[in-house]
């Protein structure tokens, strides 16, 4: 039930719902401790899939096992699915009118702005050194010019991360050796 309410109020995707889940589950219902929930959120963001779904399913599972997970999932998505269906049906009916076309001409740029902002938010935590700038630029260029699919790019990104880590470790070992020689 609690997740039904959360689903209904979390406009605009996963990140918006996180403080709300925290308040409801930790302060109002006292189901979990705050540290536990922060861990859950960091894992939910690292796993693939919608962040809000991951977070709420995982919280539901931690609180009440598999039934809890199912309840949380359904509660989280039902309101949004119903709204999207209603809007989609409505939109299909009215999309022919010229006024609707001009309205959407102004909404499209806002959508682009929203997506740019999503990139900015992830970029703030993702881009912190030269290697990450190069990887991000390469992923962007590969999508735009080579029309590569995101899935191989994501796999390549994971490999790059591991290679960078490996190089760093090698450098560390070399420097330690140097230290000993001196």
């Amino acid at each position, binding site marked *: 039930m609690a997740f039904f309410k959360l*689903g209904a*109020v979390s*406009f*605009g*995707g*996963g990140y*918006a719902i996180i403080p709300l889940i925290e308040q409801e589950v930790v302060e109002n219902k006292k189901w979990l401790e705050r540290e536990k929930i922060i861990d859950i959120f*960091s*894992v939910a963001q*690292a*796993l*693939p*899939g*919608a962040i*809000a*779904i*991951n977070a709420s*399913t*995982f919280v539901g599972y931690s609180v009440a096992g598999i039934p809890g997970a199912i309840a949380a999932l359904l509660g*989280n*998505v039902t309101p*949004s*699915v119903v*709204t999207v*269906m209603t809007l*989609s049906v409505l939109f299909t009916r009215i999309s022919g009118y010229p006024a609707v076309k*001009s309205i*959407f*001409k*102004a*909404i*499209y*740029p*806002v*959508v*682009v*702005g*929203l997506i*740019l*902002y*999503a*990139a900015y938010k992830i*970029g703030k935590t*993702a881009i912190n050194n030269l290697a990450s700038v190069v*990887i*991000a630029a*390469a*992923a*962007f260029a590969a999508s*735009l010019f080579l029309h590569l*699919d995101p*899935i191989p790019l*994501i796999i390549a*990104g*994971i*490999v*790059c*991360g591991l290679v*960078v*880590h490996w190089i760093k470790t090698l450098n560390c070992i070399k420097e330690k050796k140097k230290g000993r020689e001196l």
Partner: protein
Amino acid sequence: MGVLFKLFIMFVKLCAFAFGGGYVMIPSMVKVSEANHWASAAELTDVIAIAGMAPGPVAVNAAVGFGYRVAGFPGAVVSFLGIAIPCAVIVIVVATFFFKAYNHPLVQAALNGLRPVITGIILYAAVSLAIKNGMILAAGNTLITGGWNITAAGVNLLEVKSLILIAATFLILIKTKIQPIFLILAAGVLGVFLY
């Protein structure tokens, strides 16, 4: 049957790779959709606008809206199942194990490589939607009528009103904690006067 099955498989696949939320799915959705002649990129922009307008996770909303656009109500149902079930299973099965592995240096290294890629792909999602809707580098048939189009040497460079709206949205989102739905509604009202 063919379309429904394709939709389901597509979202199952996307779900497993949708790191960092729903927007990273957009380029794949556009690609599959154009390859199957289901819907154009411009039509998909409607879907994404509606997904951002409705409450709840963008990934799920976009999947449901996309499924509905392509194959009506059954399409919406299979897309929803495709995006929701694997995610929930991954979370329950993997999460307990992942909790322990999360701080392992190799897992962190993989995530450090993955996050910049996600940033690049989402950036591309924004740029490609801007191109396909004629906001920048418009082709002849996507040129925005009623806009202020700037053209140089036969190339449609950009449409001024759209770029102002993009910049305004981005800045407002950085500076305030406003919900996206209000920006979308405000833009809708502005659109009546702008175009």
